[in-house]
């Protein structure tokens, strides 16, 4: 293999070819989950709870079953009653019993939108009419929505088997507080005593939805012999297979899941909501069943991420040294345990080298949909508070916010609050890139302000599989197990082309179904380019080895005497120049006669994903009379290790930043007094639109990750971490008012300005 660690030597990596799946997507031919068809398929719909908390007394399905065209009705009685079993999914430990009950309520409904029954019929309109005809009798119970209220003694208790863990002594009465977690180092009290300035404040955030534009969708067939086929859009078809098997009590070998194109996920499609229901309906109906959520169902029934309450205290000396930092984070888990409290705590001070620090957190259930992973789960919530507090601190001691961060920056050798020591990190370089960006020279006018914030995310590796086959004309078929959610086929093909030394158009990447490629963990955790990319490179290396072997056979020399460069075999050493080089295509055409087809597979459990760092600088203008905040300029600097396809890397950063802008300014779940979601649609769940935004300028910093063949680090998650604090800090710069509650929507900004007499 050539020395590809040097950027200058790279021919494909770092270029910007057109993505291989692009033409289908711009012509409307790409098949997403809701486009897939199976012969004879019928259509499913769900019945959802209108109550935030209620006991199910009786479900009468008789009227629905009697309707013409209705082929099956299922309730929890049709699913195995799964016992409590902890497993690690999406964003943290998850209990399969909870997952099953979240899919279809068993005894109690725990949130508005909780599924209680599903129906399949010969048309969507009949299925919806039948769903309306299912009569559910409820005993409505008191509910609790807010996490702080849910923690109070006397709050309605959702589960009678939750006894707070992580506290001593362990409680003997159930509550909504699932667990307490803590990370600490140094001596907090001494650290605060050494500080010249201390700032302390409470922040709150609202739950926000991933708001992918494609609603959840699948088509599933349960054959009489027990074999199952599922076509769906998800962030991991092996995840879908595993959960369907577990939740329906069938063997994994009986289920084949084919990935459809996925219309956005951002963490929200690392769980199942429809697939097991569609299979259960299909089993009963004897026909394939398609299920597609409505937008309202997406908001009511699928995972937002947590809202929370964060108390922060941080102190520094006048020279800028942060002497102590503390954060207490309370996160909503939704109806079942499992908020991203761990990462929220681990990330919130990760940007700093602080001797004395602590982070304490609580995971709290309430009558909301169970949270799902959302881009850097937990980190944006806690970091909004800590990076706001650090901004306040920088103003208190009169130091530039980037200089304060540089002075205290985590670097190689810094011991993180949660234990490990950082290595090969590019945070200082990222701060410098932000500091030196021309946007920071722009002059600000009246009511305008500039804010800075940083963010951290771990990134992960994990299990991935890939296989390559050399076609007889020298082109390459590349199969991997990672659903392509944002252009990863392009980067997979580019890495293979780089290793093989061929033009990227010669490599055709596809995503294999669960029977065609080895297990691959979800497209999430910013892992695909790193982990699946490593598998692709390993398999490509194997192909190169085989190609050299075939050339050696043709030349009748030793394989060690064959060198691979620029897509061709060259005789080397004593044989140098003795034979004409053989191109990949030359060898491919003779592969049958030199030992058979040339193919390779690689599986990895990639470790050592390099952590990601982002620094965002935003300029805003505040309309003080209406509280409207306009984003004038946006700069996002990030250490990406190495950008394989820089356009899609920039796209990840831009997209993450804009999701953060939405989180900062307008997105929130709004419940009425009865605990019903009041804004379950894109009209009143306000994601950013094109006219809300300026250009999003990206500064890519490349501090290579030695654990990846080309130095790549995860990219997709970090950029959603800094925006909320950056914008809050910019609003302060513009107005002198500190916004301590997300979203910083016009009514809240105007009220804060009025309260401050500004």
């Amino acid at each position, binding site marked *: 293999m050539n020395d590809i660690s040097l950027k200058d030597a790279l021919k494909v990596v770092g270029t910007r070819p057109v*993505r291989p799946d692009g033409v289908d997507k*711009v012509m409307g031919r*790409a098949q997403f989950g809701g486009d897939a068809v199976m012969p004879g398929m019928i259509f499913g719909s769900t019945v959802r709870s209108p109550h935030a908390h209620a006991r199910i007394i009786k479900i009468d399905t008789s009227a629905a079953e009697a309707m013409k065209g209705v082929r099956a009705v299922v309730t929890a009685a049709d699913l195995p009653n799964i016992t409590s079993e902890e497993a690690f999914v999406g964003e943290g430990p998850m209990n399969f019993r909870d997952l099953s009950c979240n899919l279809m309520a068993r005894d109690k409904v725990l949130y508005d939108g909780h599924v209680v029954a599903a129906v399949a019929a010969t048309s969507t309109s009949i299925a919806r009419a039948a769903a309306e005809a299912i009569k559910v009798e409820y005993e409505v119970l008191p509910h609790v929505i807010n996490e702080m209220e849910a923690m109070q003694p006397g709050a309605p208790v959702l589960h009678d088997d939750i006894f707070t863990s992580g506290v001593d002594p362990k409680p003997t009465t159930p509550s909504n507080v699932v667990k307490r977690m803590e990370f600490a180092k140094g001596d907090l009290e001494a650290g605060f005593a050494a500080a010249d300035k201390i700032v302390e404040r409470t922040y709150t955030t609202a739950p926000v939805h991933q708001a992918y534009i494609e609603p959840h969708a699948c088509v599933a067939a349960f054959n009489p012999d027990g074999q199952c086929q599922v076509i769906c859009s998800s962030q991991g078809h092996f995840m879908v297979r595993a959960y369907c098997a577990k939740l329906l009590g069938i063997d994994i070998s009986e289920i084949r899941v084919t990935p459809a194109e996925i219309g956005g996920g951002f963490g929200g499609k690392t769980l199942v909501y429809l697939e097991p229901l569609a299979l259960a309906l299909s089993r009963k109906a004897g026909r394939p069943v398609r299920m597609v959520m409505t937008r309202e169902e997406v908001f009511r029934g699928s995972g937002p991420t947590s809202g929370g309450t964060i108390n922060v205290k941080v102190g520094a000396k006048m020279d800028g040294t942060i002497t102590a930092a503390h954060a207490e984070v309370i996160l909503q888990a939704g109806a079942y345990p499992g908020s991203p409290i761990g990462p929220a705590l681990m990330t919130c001070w990760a940007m700093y080298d602080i001797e004395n620090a602590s982070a304490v957190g609580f995971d709290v259930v309430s009558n909301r949909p169970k949270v799902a992973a959302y881009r850097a789960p937990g980190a944006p919530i806690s970091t909004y508070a800590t990076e706001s507090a650090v901004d306040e601190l920088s103003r208190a001691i009169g130091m530039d916010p980037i200089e304060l961060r540089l002075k205290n920056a985590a670097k190689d050798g810094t011991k993180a609050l949660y234990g490990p020591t950082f290595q090969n990190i590019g945070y200082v370089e990222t701060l410098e890139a932000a500091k030196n960006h021309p946007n920071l020279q722009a002059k600000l006018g009246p009511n305008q302000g500039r804010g800075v914030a940083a963010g951290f995310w771990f990134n992960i590796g994990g299990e991935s599989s890939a296989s390559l086959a050399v076609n007889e004309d020298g082109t390459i078929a590349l199969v991997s197990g990672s659903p392509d959610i*944002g252009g990863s086929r392009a980067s997979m093909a580019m890495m293979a082309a780089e290793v093989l030394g061929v033009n990227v158009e010669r490599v055709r990447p596809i995503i294999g179904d669960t029977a065609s490629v080895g297990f691959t963990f979800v497209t999430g955790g910013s892992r695909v380019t790193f982990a699946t990319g490593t598998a692709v490179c390993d398999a490509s290396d194997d192909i190169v080895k085989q190609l050299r072997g075939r050339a050696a056979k043709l030349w009748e020399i030793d394989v060690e005497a064959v060198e691979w460069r620029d897509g061709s075999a060259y005789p080397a050493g004593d044989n140098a120049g003795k034979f004409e080089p053989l191109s990949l295509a030359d060898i491919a055409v003779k592969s049958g006669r030199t030992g058979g087809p040339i193919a390779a597979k690689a599986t990895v459990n990639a470790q050592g994903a390099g952590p990601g760092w982002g620094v965002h600088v935003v300029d805003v203008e505040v309309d003080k009379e209406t509280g409207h905040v306009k984003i004038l300029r946006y700069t996002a600097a990030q250490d990406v290790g190495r950008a394989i396809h820089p356009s899609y890397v920039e796209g990840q950063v831009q997209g993450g930043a804009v999701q953060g802008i939405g989180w900062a300014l307008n997105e929130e779940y709004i419940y009425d007094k009865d605990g019903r979601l009041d804004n379950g649609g894109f009209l009143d769940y306000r994601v*950013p*639109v094109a006219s809300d935004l300026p250009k999003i300028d990206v500064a890519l910093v490349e501090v290579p990750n030695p654990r990846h063949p080309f130095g790549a680090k995860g990219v997709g998650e970090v950029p959603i971490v800094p925006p909320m604090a950056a914008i809050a800090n910019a609003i302060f710069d513009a107005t002198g008012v500190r916004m301590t509650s997300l979203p910083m929507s016009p009514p809240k900004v105007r009220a804060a300005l009025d309260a401050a007499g500004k």
Partner: protein
Amino acid sequence: MSKTHVTCTVNGEETEFLCDSNQTVLDVLREDLGLTGSKEGCGSGDCGACSVLVDGRLVCSCLMFGSEAEGTSITTIEGIADGENLHPVQSQFLKHAALQCGFCTPGLIVATKALLDANPSPTDEEARYWLAGNLCRCTGYDKIMNAVHAAAAELRGESA
């Protein structure tokens, strides 16, 4: 249930279909005509993923009954390219990496074509306001705007 018989032109071809009175044009395109390029992201006119041109005017196909299509000419994403030759808006979306997941892309391409038909030289602000009804959750719109301006330049005959 009585169905309405509708004759219209879809992507240049005369097309007939029968539809229920509460089926939308989007339902008809996707379920009856096999044209699944138009997407349903919301069903309420808030996301633009179902954008089509009806008699040259940009509309959400989820906000129009199939019955209303009688006598109209509808262009969907499947009718934007000239055969196998991509329209400049399509090729510039590819060149500028203006899509990530690709789900909003058909609607954005139809809407961009309508924009450039009406206004060959939009300012960035004009383009952003025209496209405000097309939600994209992946890209932050930045590369989409680059593609829109590049397509405009190409259609004006300027070298990009």
